């Protein structure tokens, strides 16, 4: 059975700033959704709410038609941050962290980490200090760490920002491989080409509101909103 995620009238305020305003979205398993929007549009806030790291001020989140809270959302989702976050330990320890919490055995963990590192092109990186490797390598480790947990909802905040083309290609390939499973992948990106390559559905957020939600073809060829048209033509400032 396909999984589903529904956001109903989500509102989130940060003091006087309305970060999200009546956001309603429906996602199904097996789909990759790209969230597009300028800086400050609300993409990261939306990802953080779905990740269970923030609580909305109004509205509800439903998973498989059941209302779900932050604690439960954290169990079924994983967020890869835009700015890489590494524990001050080895790459192995960073990757093993989530697996140990889930009670996996050492032999299982070793095997899975080997495979995950191979998938992101970082074989033999286990013993390296995570904070000493390059930014691109850290981003690949972050992705591998998220993949290892096999979350039902995989959230990616600008996964290839500031990466060289080679690293970006490796990461996009890894995301495409994961998209074959029955999970929901939500990817916030500024890269329209990436959104077109990876996503089945594109969502445009502007000033906390959803102003476009369409397939890549409709989004790029026939956008409903003038703001989306400007975004596609590069007339909106990021």
């Amino acid at each position, binding site marked *: 059975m396909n999984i589903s995620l529904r956001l109903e009238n989500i509102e989130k305020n940060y003091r006087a700033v309305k970060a999200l305003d009546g956001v309603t979205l429906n996602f199904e398993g097996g789909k990759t959704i790209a969230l597009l929007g300028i800086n400050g549009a609300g993409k990261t806030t939306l990802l953080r709410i779905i990740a*269970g790291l923030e609580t909305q001020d109004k509205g509800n989140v439903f998973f498989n038609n059941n209302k779900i809270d932050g604690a439960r959302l*954290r169990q079924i989702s994983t967020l890869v941050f835009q*700015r890489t976050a590494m524990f001050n330990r080895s790459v192995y320890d960073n990757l093993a962290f989530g697996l140990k919490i889930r009670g996996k055995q050492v032999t299982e963990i070793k095997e899975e980490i080997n495979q995950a590192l191979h998938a992101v092109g970082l074989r033999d990186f286990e013993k390296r200090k995570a904070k000493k490797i390059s930014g691109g390598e850290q981003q690949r480790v972050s992705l591998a760490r998220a993949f290892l947990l096999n979350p039902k909802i995989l959230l990616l905040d600008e996964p290839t920002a500031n990466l060289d083309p080679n690293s970006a290609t490796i990461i996009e390939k890894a995301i495409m491989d994961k998209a074959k499973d029955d999970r929901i992948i939500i990817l916030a990106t500024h890269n329209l080409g990436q959104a077109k390559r990876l996503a089945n559905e594109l969502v445009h957020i502007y000033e906390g509101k959803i102003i476009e939600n369409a397939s890549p073809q409709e989004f790029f060829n026939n956008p409903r909103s003038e703001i989306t048209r400007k975004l596609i033509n590069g007339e909106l400032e990021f």
Partner: protein
Amino acid sequence: MADIIIQAFQKAFELIFSGNSEVLGTVTRSLYVTGVGTFLACLWSIPIATVIGLYSFRGKWIIKGFFSAFIGVPTVALGLLLYLLLSRQGEFGFLHLLYTVNGIAVGQSILLTPIIVSFTSNALGAADVQLRDLAKTLGASSLRTNLVIMRETVWSMALAITAAFNRGFGELGIAMIVGGNLYLETRVLTTSIALETNLGSFDVAMAYAIILMAIVLAITLAINLAERLRQEDASWKKHRLLRSYIDG
């Protein structure tokens, strides 16, 4: 002046390497007193610092301010207060801590508390917020997340404890007033320096000062070296680092 300094270094080497039992006793007593004092201070300071550093609550800034304010408390003032409390007529006279090494240790533990609480809570509070989010998004509970933050800031905490130890090791007021500077009983390095200076034995006083500073320096360097070694990637780099420290 230069002659006195040279004589002081010569005296210091003489005192250390002659195996003088009085000197060794003074050094051991100093380490014991401040070691116990630091340990006691950590017992309550680290939990307090953890609550202040990792949790939000009403009045947090007042409590933080309170501990910060007492970092620089004059040791003689604290020593006098403790003297009054620990004397026979004092509220805690029954503990018989006055003029004992344990009395000095207790006094120093009170002195060091604001230092450990302030520095440790600042280190915990300054820990990257994203690390907390990272732990949570990987499935950690609130308790585990806090433990992760503590682990990530362990070296900052070690530096805070080292700074506290050094403060205690070099303080005079509590050791003199609460300990009484009793020969072979409560005499420590700082009270020995004060005594020898009063007696006009400047070379001996300076020798004790050199020993005191050497110990403080050695402990601080050891902590810093340990932290640097931990940061290094491969074992061969650790050997190179050790080499560079030895060879200068």
